[in-house]
């Protein structure tokens, strides 16, 4: 192990290209970390979550890309379809080798939007759906409102 400081002098943190929380002001990342209780920097982009995700094909951003976007401060992640297609099935959370709960991260992103009153589901649309499909079980409707409306 080379002692960098002894060999090159005090090189400081920034020139070593280390991405750390203190470098950027990433409000969205901090909020997501607080809401989800997960350390997003733990992700090493192995892609296991996206491989197991039942809806990865329909998503515009794959689940592992969502984490990457958050770390890089790309707030357009909030406009993706991905976070609303998540069914909270926990397959990603169970398989993550770094023991990250991506389910909680997706929930945090939804919560950030819902708390700004940006609902994803309209009661009216559900009403139309109910009219045709009176057999939809309550649990489906309650779940939709839990995850998609504020």
């Amino acid at each position, binding site marked *: 192990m080379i002692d960098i400081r002894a060999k090159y002098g005090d090189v400081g943190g920034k020139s070593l290209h280390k991405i750390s929380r203190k470098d950027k002001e990433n409000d969205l990342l901090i909020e997501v970390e607080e809401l989800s209780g997960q350390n997003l920097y733990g992700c090493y982009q192995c892609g296991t979550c996206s491989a197991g995700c039942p809806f990865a094909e329909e998503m515009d951003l794959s689940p592992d890309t969502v984490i990457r976007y958050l770390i890089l401060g790309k707030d357009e992640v909030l406009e993706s379809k991905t976070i609303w297609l998540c069914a909270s099935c926990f397959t990603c959370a169970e398989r993550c080798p770094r023991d990250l709960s991506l389910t909680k991260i997706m929930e945090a992103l939804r919560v950030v939007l819902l708390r700004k009153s940006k609902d994803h589901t309209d*009661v009216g649309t*559900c*009403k139309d759906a*109910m*009219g045709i499909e*009176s*057999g*939809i079980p*309550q649990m489906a*409707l*309650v779940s*939709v*409102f839990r995850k998609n*409306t504020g």
Partner: protein
Amino acid sequence: MGEKKKDEQGIKPGTITIYIMGKGVNVPSGLTIMSAIEYAGFKFVRSCGCRAGFCGACATVYRKENEHKLQFTLACQTLAEEGMYLVQLPFVPAMKALYDLENLEISGNIILQNYPEIARCVSCNTCTKSCPQEIEVMKYIQAALRGDIARCAQLSFDCIQCGLCAMRCPADIKHYHVAQLARRLYAKFITLKNEQLQIRNKDMLGGKFDAEMSRYEKMPRKELTELYKEREIEKGESI
């Protein structure tokens, strides 16, 4: 109705200070909130109805001085107390589902179909706490969500549609409209039909009384009055 909210210490003579929309006024003690506001010089053109605790027009939100809790009642049913901060709620703009009771397709989920927002209930119980009639509002919404129309109708029986529950609900549920649908369904489809009423209806619609009625319509007033005086009264009918 509203008896629990009366001042348990009894009415003290003298004047009290109440605050109507923030402005303090002195009124005699012993008046209801509604009378006290009128005493102070206000004229109710909204938020006033039967003055008997039955119509739900005078929904009132108040807070007692030095307390932080908001309380809810009907202005005509509660005595004004010292230090009450009052405001009336004349109208609640809650959306009502449009349905034709004659042509409804009944299923277990009928209430959910008309008011899907009841699935948003988080069971916070704020509605029950806002009810001036002490109805278990959350319980009847849960019953409606479960398709238990009878229970919803029975629990919501005392509802006077003041709208305080709907105003406080974080999930935007219109409890009193939901309950009204439940009661209508209960009455139309679940309760037993009164047999004598069915027979009577059939007779009337079949024209059994048409001839007699048209006779009375054409009769001069004097003759009609005589006939009325001579009408048959069954013994034991008078109270």
